[in-house]
């Protein structure tokens, strides 16, 4: 780990110390050179002084006796001697000066040396401290490098790894003793490798930071997602000397994110597939999202609906109600309301049931609201319709009971014995039951006259598929619808006519014949009218016109009084010589002609 670089600041300190030492060394060398030069000069001067002194001795020895100078010879020798003495004196003086200079120089050199020694000692101590600090820093860095949860490694400029922290080895299970080189790339998931390798190569080529997420193989062969960042480290001239890389384990976050994305996707798929309009909101109704159904229903885009924009789709009369519901939603912990929402394609408002529940965080604060609006317009309509039907049913049932009561009373009055009563009331109640069945089966359509007639006749006589038999002839258009208010009374009237025919009339004797003929024609005021002609023939022993009716007169009462009273029918009930002749002329609805008629 000795290669571990010191931080920049330590580097700078070291550089400045090195510079200072360099200067000191230069100064010392200069001083030493100067000293050497001075020594040389001194040596040279001493040698010259010695030479001069010897010359002087020689000169003195060879010279004649000084007291008697020779006028010619003596003068020349004396002159030469004095010249040499003079030179010697000058040389001595020079030597003296030089010696003094040398002494000064020596002193200064000595001082410089002392000073240098002191400073070198000081610097040596400082460098020692710095080295100790650097070693400590390096140890700290190493500790930190092994302490951080990230995987750290360093590569040379070409990307060959030359250092990893302990985490790397722990995680990957690589042997620290094995050289790694580009082998670290093998730890990348095969599926991520091409992309990561390309990104790494690009970063190395361009000298740019590398920032890439990929899976790294763990010691057990499992893979985890890492966010790997690498930065180049450069020298003073900007040349990349190495790369530092850090891999942060983002596996859990990534999985959580993916789970969230999947959950979000499922949520969207669900809400976009459901018939309800779904939306999300915060803070008392500020929408943050609405489903596509909302947009296609209201014509308001998701954007337009955000915030309180969705209120535009609410019926103006319902907006206060909606705002009020939102105002207390947080306290209630639920939003429930009914309001009309504009159905843009149809251009009308429809009733919607809106419900939202808060989504809470772990401490129970509301993060957002999740709401649905369900079209209950049809439901409300059906409910209203149902209410009407229930009321109608009640009305009819009670009316029917009252009719039963009235019929019972009449039957009782006209019965001479309980046995007669029993038979008669039984048949009448049957007739009433049949017509109720017809009325309830019609499902909104009208009951046709021919159907009603055949139903009633069949209860008394055998009819073939065409509704005929030897004694009965039916002729008239099929499918003439009659007013529902007329059906019951007409059925009862037909029942009484049939009963009387079977008991006392045309069907009571083999010679008798019953012909029922009907047609539809336009009346005086342009309304459609149904004309029915009931004619019995071949009957003998008819009672007189004013004789009491054999059946108690209920049939006659229904025809002569009830039909005219209830429906303004024009009726006639006559005893012809050979049988009953009855006519009914009653208005029918315009839509009465359900099938073609042949007048």
């Amino acid at each position: 780990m000795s290669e571990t670089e010191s931080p920049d600041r330590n580097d700078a300190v070291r550089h400045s110390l090195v510079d200072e030492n360099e200067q000191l060394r230069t100064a010392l060398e200069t001083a030493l050179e100067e000293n050497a030069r001075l020594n040389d000069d001194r040596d040279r001067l001493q040698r010259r002084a010695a030479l001069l002194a010897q010359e002087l001795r020689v000169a003195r020895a060879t010279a004649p006796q000084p007291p008697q100078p020779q006028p010619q010879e003596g003068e020349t020798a004396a002159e030469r001697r004095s010249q040499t003495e003079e030179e010697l004196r000058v040389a001595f003086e020079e030597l003296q000066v030089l010696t003094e200079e040398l002494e000064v120089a020596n002193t200064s050199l000595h001082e410089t040396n002392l000073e240098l020694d002191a400073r070198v000692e000081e610097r040596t101590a400082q460098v020692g401290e710095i080295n100790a600090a650097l070693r400590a820093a390096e140890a700290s860095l190493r500790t930190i490098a092994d302490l951080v949860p990230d995987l750290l490694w360093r590569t040379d400029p070409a990307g060959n790894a030359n250092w990893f922290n302990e985490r790397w080895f722990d995680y990957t299970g690589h042997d620290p003793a094995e050289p790694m080189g580009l082998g670290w790339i093998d730890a990348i998931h095969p599926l991520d490798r091409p992309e990561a390798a390309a990104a790494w190569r690009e970063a190395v080529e361009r000298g740019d930071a590398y920032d890439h997420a990929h899976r790294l193989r763990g010691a057990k062969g499992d893979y985890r997602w890492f966010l790997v960042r690498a930065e180049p480290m450069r020298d003073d001239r900007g040349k990349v000397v190495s790369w530092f890389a850090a891999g942060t384990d983002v596996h859990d976050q990534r999985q959580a994110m993916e789970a969230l994305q999947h959950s979000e996707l499922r949520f969207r798929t669900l809400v976009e597939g459901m018939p309800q309009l779904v939306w999300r909101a915060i803070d008392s109704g500020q929408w943050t999202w609405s489903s596509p159904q909302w947009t296609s229903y209201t014509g308001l885009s998701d954007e337009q609906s955000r915030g309180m924009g969705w209120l535009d789709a609410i019926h103006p009369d319902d907006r206060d109600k909606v705002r009020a519901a939102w105002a207390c939603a947080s306290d209630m912990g639920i939003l429930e309301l009914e309001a009309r929402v504009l159905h843009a394609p149809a251009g009308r408002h429809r009733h919607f049931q809106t419900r939202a529940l808060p989504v809470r965080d772990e401490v129970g604060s509301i993060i957002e609201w999740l709401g649905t609006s369900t079209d209950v317009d049809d439901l409300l309509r059906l409910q209203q319709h149902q209410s009407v039907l229930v009321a109608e049913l009640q009305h009819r049932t009670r009316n029917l009971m009252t009719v039963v009561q009235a019929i019972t009373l009449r039957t009782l009055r006209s019965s001479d014995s309980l046995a007669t009563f029993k038979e008669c009331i039984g048949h009448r109640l049957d007739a009433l039951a049949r017509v109720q069945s017809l009325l309830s089966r019609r499902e909104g359509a009208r009951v046709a006259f021919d159907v009603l007639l055949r139903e009633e006749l069949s209860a008394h006589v055998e009819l073939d598929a065409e509704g005929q038999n030897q004694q009965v002839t039916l002729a008239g258009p099929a499918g003439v619808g009659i007013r529902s208010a007329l059906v019951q009374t007409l059925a009862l009237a037909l029942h009484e006519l049939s009963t009387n025919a079977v008991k006392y009339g045309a069907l009571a004797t083999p010679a008798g014949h019953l012909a029922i003929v009907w047609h539809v024609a336009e009346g005086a005021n342009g309304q459609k009218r149904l004309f029915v002609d009931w004619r019995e023939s071949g009957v003998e022993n008819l009672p007189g016109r004013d004789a009491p009716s054999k059946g108690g007169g209920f049939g006659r009462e229904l025809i002569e009084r009830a039909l005219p009273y209830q429906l303004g029918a024009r009726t006639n009930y006559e005893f012809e010589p050979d049988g009953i002749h009855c006519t009914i002329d009653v208005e029918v609805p315009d839509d009465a002609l359900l099938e073609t008629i042949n007048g």
Partner: protein
Amino acid sequence: MAEQVLRGTRILVVEDEYLLADDLTNALSDAGAYVLGPAASVEDATTLIGNETAIDAAILDVNLRGDMVFPLADALRDRGIPFAFATGYDDWALPPRFADAPRIEKPFKSERVADILKPLIRKEQ
């Protein structure tokens, strides 16, 4: 029949079902009343009360061939003529303004009709 509790009174009957109208008429006649009508439609009844000045009370079927009798009831109320509804409907099917009107619920007993009408007439007199 019982005593003629409605003797001398003139009672309007509005009922579209012949058999019921007939029974009501008989019951009222038995109680001594003179029956106006019976009328089977709102239209007929409206014509009738337009021509009659003396009406002591009325029995109104609520649903006359699909038409509601309420406009006629309003007209009677305007003239101060008391009335009772003969109805198969429950209370809630009646407009609130008629909540206090007496009702003869179907199926009815003939003898009860007179008993219901009598206090109305007495109260008004």
